[in-house]
């Protein structure tokens, strides 16, 4: 398959920090108790990248994202953000968590507005804030539930709410951990196109964790295949399609080819994890 330039990252990334390298994972290790989760992972994320992590369940994807978000520290190696070691979370990196973290004491509308009412957004006008909230309520189709408490939402609605909150805060760097898992296929594609639109119009960088190979290809320009635990980067795949994508892409020969290739890679990892046991 010649569309994807595949290679394995074994040595640490070059230590020089080039201006459009946004994130560098450099030989990162992490062990929880007796269990090694991350084993010598190194990769870069460039400004404007949409990078996806795919890999078997429990391999360490969330752990890696947490390091970048600033919630976990590597045991060895380092995670650099714009050349500086990540020391904690910040509003430059918006995170959509795997278990949503929707605030149960706020209504749908208040949840979405939460990020906008913080000090970091004091530059934003009231009108602008209101519009942003309205926009995401509409886009996530939560209009009927603007005053509902999260406990009264369905699973998929809660996920959409978490997405709305993350998008509304408008971070430069979006970290998303299986953000579309609880959505039906149609809502999911709507969300894909929404996300692509945002990426395009606002020049963001994104990291996506997903179990859907199709989703990874459709959205990303680079995909990292993560091995079974302890996780390493098995392969990096560059997605050759243009930034302007639509649903028709899914039926093209290249897309189907690439999907098959990626599936095989993930399958191998899965098999390997099974052997390990």
């Amino acid at each position, binding site marked *: 398959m010649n569309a994807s330039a595949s290679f394995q990252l074994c040595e640490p990334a070059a230590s020089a920090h080039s201006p459009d390298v946004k994130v560098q994972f450099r030989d990162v290790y992490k062990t929880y108790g007796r269990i090694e989760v991350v084993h010598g992972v190194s990769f870069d994320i460039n400004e404007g990248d949409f990078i996806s992590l795919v890999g078997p369940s429990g391999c360490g994807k969330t752990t890696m994202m947490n390091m970048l978000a600033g919630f976990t520290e590597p045991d060895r190696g380092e995670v650099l953000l714009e050349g500086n070691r990540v020391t904690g979370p*910040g509003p430059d990196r918006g995170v959509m968590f795997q278990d949503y973290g929707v605030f149960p004491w706020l209504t749908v509308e208040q949840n979405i507005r939460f990020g906008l009412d*913080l000090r970091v957004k004091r530059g934003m006008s009231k009108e602008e804030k209101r519009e942003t909230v309205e926009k995401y309520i509409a886009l996530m189709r939560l209009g009927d539930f603007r005053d509902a*408490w999260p406990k009264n939402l369905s699973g998929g609605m809660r996920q959409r709410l978490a997405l709305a909150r993350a998008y509304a805060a408008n971070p430069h760097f979006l970290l998303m951990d299986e953000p579309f898992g609880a959505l039906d296929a149609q809502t999911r594609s709507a969300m894909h196109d929404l996300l692509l639109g945002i990426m395009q119009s606002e020049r963001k960088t994104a990291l996506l964790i997903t179990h859907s190979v199709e989703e990874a290809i459709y959205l990303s320009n680079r995909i990292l295949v993560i091995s079974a635990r302890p996780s390493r980067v098995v392969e990096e795949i560059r997605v050759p399609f243009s930034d302007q994508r639509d649903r028709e892409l899914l039926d093209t020969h290249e897309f189907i080819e690439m999907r098959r290739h990626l599936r095989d890679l993930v399958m191998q990892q899965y098999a390997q994890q099974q052997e390990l046991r």
Partner: protein
Amino acid sequence: MQRLAEFGWRLLPFIAAITIWYLVRWSGLVDQGLLPPPHAVFVEIWRRSLDGGFLLDAWMSVRRVLLGLFFGMLLAVPVGFLIGWNRGVRRFVDPLVNFFRALPPIALIPLVIVYLGIGEVAKVAILFYAAFFAGVIVMYEGMSQINPLFVRVARTLGATDWEIFYKVIIPLTIPHVLTATRVALGVAWATLVASELVAAQNGIGAVIQNASAFFQLTTIYAGIVTIGFFALLMDSVLRAITRNFLNWQDRVAQ
């Protein structure tokens, strides 16, 4: 009809309690002279209320309890937060809190009289002391049970420490503030008599003290029943007020 039945249900426990009271008296288990009958106690309350002094006493006590509770919780909430939130503060304040909260209000009375005098300040101070230390520990324990996920989410949205505190921690601890306040309310009432040991000219505690000085058991019981009544009333009001703050919770018991 429905409402009447509801009202009946509410009264039931008290009717049961009074019945037991009569039964104990009639059974002859205790010297009748040492246990006045309920009706005598209620007549006593009525009689004393009519002449007005008792109502003033009740009001003075209620005021003291409210003030003590208010200032106690006003301090307990932030201190509970700080202990739960900041490791440095916890290390320093936690042992002191655990030391001081055990100190008996009665034992402190001589000190209070000497340092704070015998006025309202001294009485409210004792109630404050009791309410604060009862409340702070509940606050702190509640604090420490908060799910860190919400704090993380807020951080990634750019919340400062202070914003996390008042936009995340406070709402999440409201149920604990309620618990803490209810506990503190009970403890404050229970400390009332001790606080009014400080030169009590008025207040229900003073009435009880006074009656003890002349061994007027009926009056003592009247005072006790009155304290229970007001405590119950304040507790109900407190719960009614706070009920809507907790609507967002998925609770087993509604």
